[in-house]
Structure formats: C-alpha cells, structure tokens
C-alpha cells in the first residue's frame, strides 16, 4: 500500500446521468409533461381561473356546466372550475413540501447512519422500525386533531411520517457505496463525516433520492387528500380537492361536478406521478421499490 495515488482518487462520475431524462420510457415522459402542465396551471391559477375561488354566489347553486361556468357551480354557487384550478396549488404545495421534507431529512439520516454504521446505525434502525410499525394515519389524525388542522401542519406531519421509509432505502444505497475506495481515500485525506456525506456520498445516491422523492410525492398526495376528505387537512373555505369531495358528496344528486372535478384532478395527478415514478425507478432504482402505498 505504498501507492498513494489512491488518495487522489475522486468519486466516479456516474456515466450518462446528465442526460438521464432522455432515457426515460415514453410513458414516463408523457407523465412528466402532464406534471409540468399541472405545475403551470397551479402557478398561473390567478390568471386562468375565471372567478375568485372562494367567492360565493357567482352563480346560483348547483348550476350545470355552461359557457359561463364550464364545470358548473357548487352548493354555495362557487365556480367549480376556479376552485379546481386553485385546488391544484393546494395539493402541489402540500404534497411537494411533504415529499421534499421526507426526502431531505430521510436522505440525510439514511446517508449518515449508513456511512457511520455500528451502534448508531443499529439503534437508529430499531427506532425507525418502531415508528414504521405505528399506522401513519392514526399518528396523523392524532397530531392534526390535537394541534388543530392547517395546511402547513398537515404537510409537515405527512412529510415527517415518511422519513423512516426514505431513510431505510437511502441507508441501503449508502452502504453499497460506503466501502468503495474513493470513500476510504476521502477519509484518509482527513475529510469530515459531514463533508464525506455531502460531497462523496450524496452524488452517488442522487438516483435513489429522486426515486424516493417521486414515490413520496404520490404517497403524500393520496395521504393529504384522504386527510382533507376526513376534515383534517386544509380548512374551509380553502379550495382543497379532498375537502371539495367531502363537501360535495352529500349533494351529489343535485350536481356531480363539485365532486367529479377535484376527484378527476386528483386521479390524473397521482396516475402521472406513479407513471413517472415507474420510469425513474427503472432508470435509477436498485430493484423493485414496492408499492406507492
């Protein structure tokens, strides 16, 4: 081991990842476009929504679709199209925030315990297992129910509840890299653990992180939608898809549109996220990652 050149060895640059998006399956590309369209609608909501989302009696209650109200009106005479458009903002913000939170915290935690190993890893894994053995929905209902439902609290709660899932997968990915020469070299150069995690390990688990973020986005959207439906998500009069479905279901005989529009928005969004997840998983995933739920 007199050859010191190993110390200068730098991490291998994963080949061709820069253009990874081009290698996605067609279905995932289409899904990506759909997701971009959703993002555009959410961002441009004030410009494209024909009415203010929460303004009551812009029409009479339960109007059928017409030129003035493309998707009709709800029980309070609010424009369903405008509320559905604004609802995309609510769910994308909340779902994105939740997924981002779980991917970043879970990612850091997973890399750290995967790299350090030993007792720390052992203890952390047991704790993660215990947290995962408690049903998330009960956890979420208790926390949100006690502290008072609000969109930010729901997003943070749902995000934190997914941290163990992300941490476990990232830990496994980290372990497979941690014994490579360039890590040993970095340690011999005297890099700190934090620097090794961020500069050497992170670039090598990016693919895993992208897959996890994508999986968690789909999961969070369904979870947040369910909480909204139960009345434990964004509060009235917010245009929130889960809440809209709940508000409209009692009067579904009068008009199906206040339920059908947010339901379709939700179903298409999650289908697109799932297709996209499938694609990135095929590109980066180590193996079958398991179901979205």
């Amino acid at each position, binding site marked *: 081991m007199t050859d010191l050149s190993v110390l200068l060895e730098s991490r291998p640059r994963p080949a061709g990842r820069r253009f990874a998006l081009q290698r996605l399956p067609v279905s995932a590309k289409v899904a990506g476009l759909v997701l971009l369209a959703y993002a555009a609608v959410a961002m441009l909501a004030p410009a494209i929504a024909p009415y203010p989302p929460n303004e009551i009696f812009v029409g009479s209650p339960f109007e059928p679709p017409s030129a003035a109200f493309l998707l009709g009106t709800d029980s309070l005479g609010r424009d369903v199209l405008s509320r559905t458009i604004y609802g995309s903002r609510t769910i994308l913000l909340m779902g994105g925030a939740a997924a981002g939170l779980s991917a970043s915290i879970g990612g850091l935690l997973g890399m750290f315990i995967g790299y350090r190993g030993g007792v720390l890893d052992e203890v952390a894994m047991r704790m993660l297992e215990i947290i995962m053995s408690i049903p998330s929905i009960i956890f979420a209902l208790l926390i949100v129910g006690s502290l008072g439902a609000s969109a930010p609290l729901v997003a943070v709660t749902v995000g934190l509840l997914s941290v163990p899932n992300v941490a476990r997968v990232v830990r496994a990915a980290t372990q497979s890299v941690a014994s490579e020469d360039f890590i040993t070299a970095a340690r011999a150069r005297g890099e700190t653990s934090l620097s090794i995690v961020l500069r050497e390990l992170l670039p090598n688990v990016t693919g895993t992180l992208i897959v996890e973020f994508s999986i968690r986005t789909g999961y969070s959207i369904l979870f947040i939608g369910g909480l909204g439906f139960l009345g434990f998500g964004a509060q009235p009069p917010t245009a929130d898809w889960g809440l809209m479905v709940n508000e409209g279901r009692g009067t*579904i005989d009068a008009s199906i549109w206040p339920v059908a529009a947010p339901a379709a928005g939700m179903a298409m969004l999650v289908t697109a996220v799932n297709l996209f997840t499938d694609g990135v998983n095929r590109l980066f995933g180590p193996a079958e990652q398991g179901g979205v739920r």
Partner: protein
Amino acid sequence: MRVAPIPRLIVTRLALSVLSLFVVSLIVFSAVELLPGDTAERILGREATKESLAALRTQLRLSDPAPERYARWLGGIVQGDFGRSLVADRPVFSYIAGYLGRTLLLGGLALLIHIPLSIGLGLLAAARPDGASDLALSAAVLIGMSIPEFVVGIFLIMLLANDLQLFPPLALIDQAKSFGDVIHMLALPVITLNFAMTAYVVRQTRNSMIEVLKSDYVRMASLRGLSPLRVLFVHALPNALSPAINAIALNASWLVGGIVVVEVVFNYPGLGRLLVESIRFHDVPMIQGAALALSAAYIAVNLVADIATLLLNPKLRTRTA
C-alpha cells in the same frame, strides 16, 4: 453468515411489537395532552363555575405531573379500564370490542377476496407477457392504485347504489338481519378496499411468475410432457408466490389504516370512524381507546403477516448456514 433460526426471529419480532405498542401508548397520551383545555373543562362543559372546575381537578388529580398521570392511565388500560366516554358517558371499553370486531370483519372480508383475486389476475397477466390482457391489466391496475379510496367509494355508491340500486349506499350493519344482509352491505366497502390493494400484488405475482416460467426446471417439466396446467400450478406457482405473499402482507397492514377513510365514506360503525368522530368531539378517553385498539390491531396484523411470510417462504425456512 448464519441466519437466525425461525423461533428466535419470531421472539424478536414479538418483543419489538410489545415495544411498539408501548411507544404508541406514549404517543397517544402525549397527543391528547396537546388538545386545548383540560379534562375537567371537557367534562363539565362551558357553563362550569370556577369552584366546580377546581373541585373536579383535585378529584381527578389533574395537577399531578404528566408522567404520573401517564402511569396511572396505562395501569388502568392494562386492567381493561379505558375510562368513560365524555360524549356517551359510558365506559369506553364497552364500545371498543364491538367496533374492533366490525373493523376486523370488514378487513377480513376484504382480504379474503383480495388474495385469490390479485394472485389470479397476476397469473393471467403472466400467461402472455406484454400481450393484450397483460397490458390492459397493467393499465387498469395503475389507474386503480392512483385513485384515492374515498373517490372510488363515492363513485361506487353513485353508480351501484344510487343508479343501479344493487347495493345499499351505507353500510349500516346494525340493521343487518342475516349473514346475507351483511355481505350485501359490505360489498361496496370491500370492493373499494380491493381497488387500492390489487395493483401491487398483481405486479409482484406477474413479475415473479414470468421469471420462474423462464427458469430451467419449469422448461424441463414442460419438455417432459407434463400438462401446462400441472406445470403452472404444481411446479411454477409455489416458487413464484413468495414476492406475492410479501406484498399481501404489506397490504394487510395497509388495510388497517386504509379502512379509516372507507369506514367514513360508508358510515360503517368501525374503529376508524369511531376515532375520527371522537377526535372531532374532543372525547379524550374515546380517542385514546380507539387509537390504541386500532394501533394494536395494526401491530398484530403486521406481526402475523411477518411470521406468515417467514413460514411460507421456502428459501428462508430451509437456509440454515
């Protein structure tokens, strides 16, 4: 590396489950501590005088430190004393058993349909990989798992209950007079739950079956002239099943959480709806009881599923060195 023998694995899992249950009790207790107001205010309501509040607080020893109250509460639970519901003014325990039973009935029925249905569909898809039925199934399954269960439930109610009048829209199981009634009432919630669960198992069964069908020993069996059905069910299926069993185990534990929303959609008097309602009314003893019972069910299902996976997987069973 030696793999731990099965009995030891089971004991470890059991210990972990008890630990989880303990953590759940801590979380349940701390969460309701965060609710605004205290127990005395909740019992006496808004018109209570300062004196009566103070008296009740002394009586209930509410000024004791939280760890002490937690220990007292947990001690009561261990002896089957869950406290009295603030809304119904009856012991919580008398509610839990019935609601838990109904939740298990719904979940059990859903699982009973789920297992043969999803494995069967997986085999159908594997019969002709990338054939028409495979692609159609993949698409259906993807869409099925992307629609939230509350949406599926509402549209099933609209279509099959309101329009075609095949099933009752609400699962008011208290009014059931016979077992047939029960099945009739639970059909829609069971279908709703299966919508969400099918995808993953179909996919796992399909993929592993395709792998196994390509393997040498299966081709050998076909070359020996055994009938295709015999090759499929006797030679290939047992080895293709373990990923599917894993997926079913995951679904079984998902079910305990997913059932909450479905119970609310169909007004089904199960533990999930009880929990949601009692959180709405700030009925603390009922929240604690329902959350604990539901979590215990989840942990138990997880445990059983884990052990079943362990015992049903021939690879894990025989590998000793």
